[in-house]
């Protein structure tokens, strides 16, 4: 029993990270129909910038904040320099551009930072809490809490604010959004900033547990993509549920089968979803009336 609980707790922690990455995919996908494969790099940058800012003497909270802000800025730059100039190109081309951007960011990180594995101290120490015979690290609670805060914040933003509803309107029908006076290029920029910022936050929260290096982004992007596909691409609720499901599946696979196979779980999920449930759990069928 306590063993199962232990696997579930670690699954939820990992799942919260996947949910945040999936949410990043969702936000950009909604604004532009583009699947941004540089999403994992945003997570890597969040961790790496914090590590180096902290090493340079900045207090941890300030370093973390700087990492989130800098990564959000980088997301905006990526939109302005790589996506916007290619506007009007087919979506597949834009997706390939994001793959290029991800390789570029990874390469640049290797040069700017280094190729070592890094970490920084957990926010609230390393003494685990005991729950019914299982243990959970305080940092895991930070990860889960951070994910919950991001989801609640975004939900409020999208349902209550004019700007949030402008983003939703743009994702629903971009031309119609322009017709009612919504500045859709700005919505795109905002989406990239939000996505990158959320990715970086995930990186900041999880680095004390999983550690980071210049090349952690690729695996995270693939897991986050699997989570987003499972939940239904373009649906924030799907990102949350997909991320948690995937995390739990990984936790249980690692616990009961072998941790060698935990990565395989994510990829079996992608294949199964693509074969049997292309819309995902909460995906909507899109139809156009002419």
């Amino acid at each position, binding site marked *: 029993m306590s063993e199962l609980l232990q696997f579930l707790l670690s699954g939820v922690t990992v799942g919260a990270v996947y949910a945040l990455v999936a949410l990043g995919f969702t936000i950009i996908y909604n604004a532009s129909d583009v699947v941004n494969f540089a999403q994992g790099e945003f997570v890597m940058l969040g961790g790496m910038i914090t590590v180096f800012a902290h090493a340079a003497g900045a207090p941890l909270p300030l370093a973390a904040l700087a990492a989130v802000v800098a990564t959000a800025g980088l997301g905006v730059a990526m939109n302005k320099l790589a996506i916007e100039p290619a506007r009007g190109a087919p979506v597949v081309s834009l997706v390939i551009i994001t793959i290029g951007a991800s390789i570029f960011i990874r390469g640049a990180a290797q040069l700017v930072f280094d190729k070592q594995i890094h970490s920084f101290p957990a926010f609230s120490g390393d003494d685990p809490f005991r729950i019914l015979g299982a243990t959970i690290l305080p940092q895991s609670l930070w990860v889960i809490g951070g994910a919950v805060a991001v989801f609640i914040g975004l939900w409020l933003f999208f349902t209550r604010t*004019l700007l949030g509803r402008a983003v939703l309107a743009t994702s629903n*029908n971009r*031309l*119609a959004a*322009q*017709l*009612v*006076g919504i500045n859709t290029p700005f919505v795109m920029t905002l989406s990239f900033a939000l996505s990158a910022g959320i990715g970086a936050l995930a990186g900041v929260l999880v680095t004390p547990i999983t550690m980071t290096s210049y090349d952690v982004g690729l695996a995270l992007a693939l897991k986050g993509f699997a989570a987003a596909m499972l939940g239904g691409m373009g649906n924030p609720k799907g990102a949350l549920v997909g991320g948690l499901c995937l995390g739990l599946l990984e936790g249980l696979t690692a616990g009961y089968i072998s941790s060698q196979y935990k990565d395989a779980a994510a990829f079996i999920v992608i294949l199964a979803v693509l074969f049997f449930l292309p819309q995902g759990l909460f995906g909507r069928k899109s139809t156009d009336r002419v």
Partner: protein
Amino acid sequence: MTLLSIEGLGISFGGVRAVHDVSFGVRPGEIVSVIGPNGAGKTTLFNMISGVYQPGAGKVVLEGEDVTAMSPHLLARRGMCRTFQNLQVFQTMTVLENVISGYHLQESGSVLADLLNLPASRRRARAAEEGARALLGRVGLERAAEREAGSLSYGSLKRLEIARAMALKPKVLLLDEPAAGCNAVETEEIDHLIAEIAASGVAILLVEHDMKMVMRISNHIVVLDHGEKIAEGDPASVSRNPAVIAAYLGAEDAAG
């Protein structure tokens, strides 16, 4: 006083002159229709006026300001709105939400006030909702307010799109085939609606195939053929114009 003037507008696609040197003006409260045979360049002209295409030559002037090739959201801010022949509505939102989206520009609350759900934000949202319901009443869709837009009939969606455009309180409204695909009853409803909007002082520019409707409601008609303006004037004079008749019947030689 001319509200919107089109001055020598032209565009070519790969050497083909789709529209060449077209000029005319629209005054407040006036209904101007652009007609012409299929492929005459009506929709291309519309797309240039509304900033979808960048014209190769000429200018679009709105209230004395050059707005040529300005993007649709900036035109919306200056009071020029359009509808599309192939419906651009938010399919998965409700009918009411679609119209409320038209109040986007008039609502201007801070993100923080909205997040905290302050009274000012709620008041603003309520005003937009009341306005939207009133507009739905005007286009006869008040009973469908809570339905998902995607579930409406074609004719209702056309009226929904007009209601949403009206929410922006436009000075100029560009309607691209508002009656296309509608039955006779729906066409007449749209017909009345357009006349009513014009009567409230909005300048209306219309592209429409339904000749009866065009003749009935237009103050002024511009006729295009092969991308050029071949005639303009009131409905009676245009319908008697030999060049127009020739263009529609395809008997260019006979018309001389």
